[in-house]
């Protein structure tokens, strides 16, 4: 079974959420999921001018910290992420590469002045984690509304799509593009 390392970054007090995510990714994607603490200083990815963390820099750090026996690594952040040219990103992944990073910051309803909703946050986190890992498996954005690979630029877009892949994107069926199921 291919292995995925889950790395919490600036995510204190969210162990239960992480455990839940591990279980989902194991069941949904058939991955052996382990958690480990980051072996790098994530604070160096902070941009004081923007008050956000550079997701591309975090990806580089995750790759440098990748254990030999691990196939994929997913960083889960509690802080807001950006890539230099964009105002923000929910996450970033290497297309057909081993690393991805996601942030729960903009997935949290309380960020938008709404009442906190842990269940909704977990749901969004699962979808974003599967979405970014889908890119790692070589999948690009899908036009199907009922597919987790549909692009989401607003948090509401995430709520509209399911956590599963459509028939065309399902990595279990798309063996040619999927490295975890060769």
């Amino acid at each position, binding site marked *: 079974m291919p292995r995925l390392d889950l790395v919490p970054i600036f995510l204190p007090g969210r162990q239960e959420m992480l455990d839940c995510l591990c279980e989902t990714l194991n069941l949904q994607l058939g991955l052996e999921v382990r958690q480990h603490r980051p072996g790098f200083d994530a604070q160096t990815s902070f941009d004081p001018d923007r008050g956000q963390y550079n997701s591309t820099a975090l990806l580089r750090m995750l790759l440098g910290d990748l254990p030999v026996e691990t196939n994929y690594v997913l960083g889960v952040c509690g802080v807001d992420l950006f890539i*230099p*040219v*964009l*105002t923000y990103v929910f996450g970033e*992944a290497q297309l057909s590469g081993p690393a991805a990073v996601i942030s729960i910051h903009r997935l949290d309803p309380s960020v938008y002045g709404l009442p906190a909703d842990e269940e909704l946050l977990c749901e969004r986190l699962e979808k974003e984690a599967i979405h970014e890992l889908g890119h790692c498996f070589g999948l690009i954005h899908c036009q199907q509304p009922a597919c987790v690979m549909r692009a989401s*630029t607003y948090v509401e877009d995430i709520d509209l799509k399911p956590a599963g892949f459509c028939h065309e994107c399902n990595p279990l069926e798309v063996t040619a593009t999927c490295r975890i199921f060769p």
Partner: protein
Amino acid sequence: MDQNAPGILIVDDEYSVRDSLEKWFQKDGYRTASAQDAGEALKLLQEASYDVALLDIKMPGVDGMELQRRIHKLDTDVTVIMITAFASVETAVQALKEGAFDYITKPIDPDELSHLVRRAIEQRQLKAENIQLRQKVEHLSMPEQIVGTSPQMQEVLEMVRSVAETDATVLVRGESGTGKELIAQAIHANSHRRYFPIIPVNCGALPESLLESELFGHEKGAFTGALYRRKGKLEMSDGGTLFLDEVGTISPKTQIDLLRVLETKEFNRLGGNNPIRVEFRVVSATNQNLEQLVEQGDFREDLYYRLNVFTISIPPLRERREDIPLLAQHFLEKYARQMNRAFTEFDSSAMELMVRYPWPGNVRELANAVERALVVGKAPVVVEEDLPLQLNDAAFLPAGDSLAEVEQVHVERILEQTEWNVSQAAKILGVDRATLYNKIKKYGLSR
């Protein structure tokens, strides 16, 4: 990467911008390439085509604005989106003035970027589709080929070419069956109005009241039986061409109404109060002597002058006999294709008969004769017997009314009948051989 996917070229001197945008668009399934300066960008554009170019306005050396100009010289189809770090209305307006699709400021909102690029690509696809459809429409709306190499027809075609683009009102004159509607269609197809309809109205086929309703349309309840509002032909031809066939048959009342519309380009539907503005070109056709009708008081002089701005007269087929073989072959090929019959040509006697025949029904009659011949004949050659009988009877009738014309045709017919045996022909004609030789010389007859 899908080589058929829409292509995006990113030009920015900052590596992180190029890298992150390329990755971003790749995940959307686009084909991407990036360049750090204008030189590299132009090189990439020469190697492959891109749908959208994202250009940073501020770059060392050649800036985004200048690069946009150079890109448009190289490939006018590329949609340019400007990226700027400083939202300056002046530069943005300048960029848009010079043809940029839009501009965005850094850092870019991901949602805005997605929508903008999708919109740019959609617009480009629509533009390409529009060009394709226009080509199809042009092909479909091409009038049937006008066949004729005679100087008279060449002159007619030259007049069509010169008047088509001018928007002038045209009066097409010619006997019945000479192809007046075809000429009207050719004028329309060669004018800037070709993407709008050409609306034909056969003025002779409709009684006065019906023609009025046909031209002007009517409101619901305008008259008994007017159950619905209906647009008239004038309204339908808005932007295009109104073709008034047999214009000489229009009643005096409709002539007044029509004249008013031609002058004001405004009319009311029957039973309606709201004036409707229309903009169309008028091409009319007649086989009547309009000048005589004006003299007799049957056609309004002012309408006559309004319609008769430019006249094209189509000569009858008997006055351009050299076109007959070409036209006959054209119709043979056309109908053979339609009927799926393997006809290829006419034998010499059939062709000779057609060239001699005066064709009072003009090209239409010739087309019908060929069509009939293909129905009754045996492929691959049309022979004399396949042609309608009246052709045989009439082909040798005098071409004119003068004694000389009658004599010429008769002498020629007897010579043909005797296969140019002068002695035999002279005997039949009741003249001596010398007289017959004189007649042959006089009329320039030859085998």
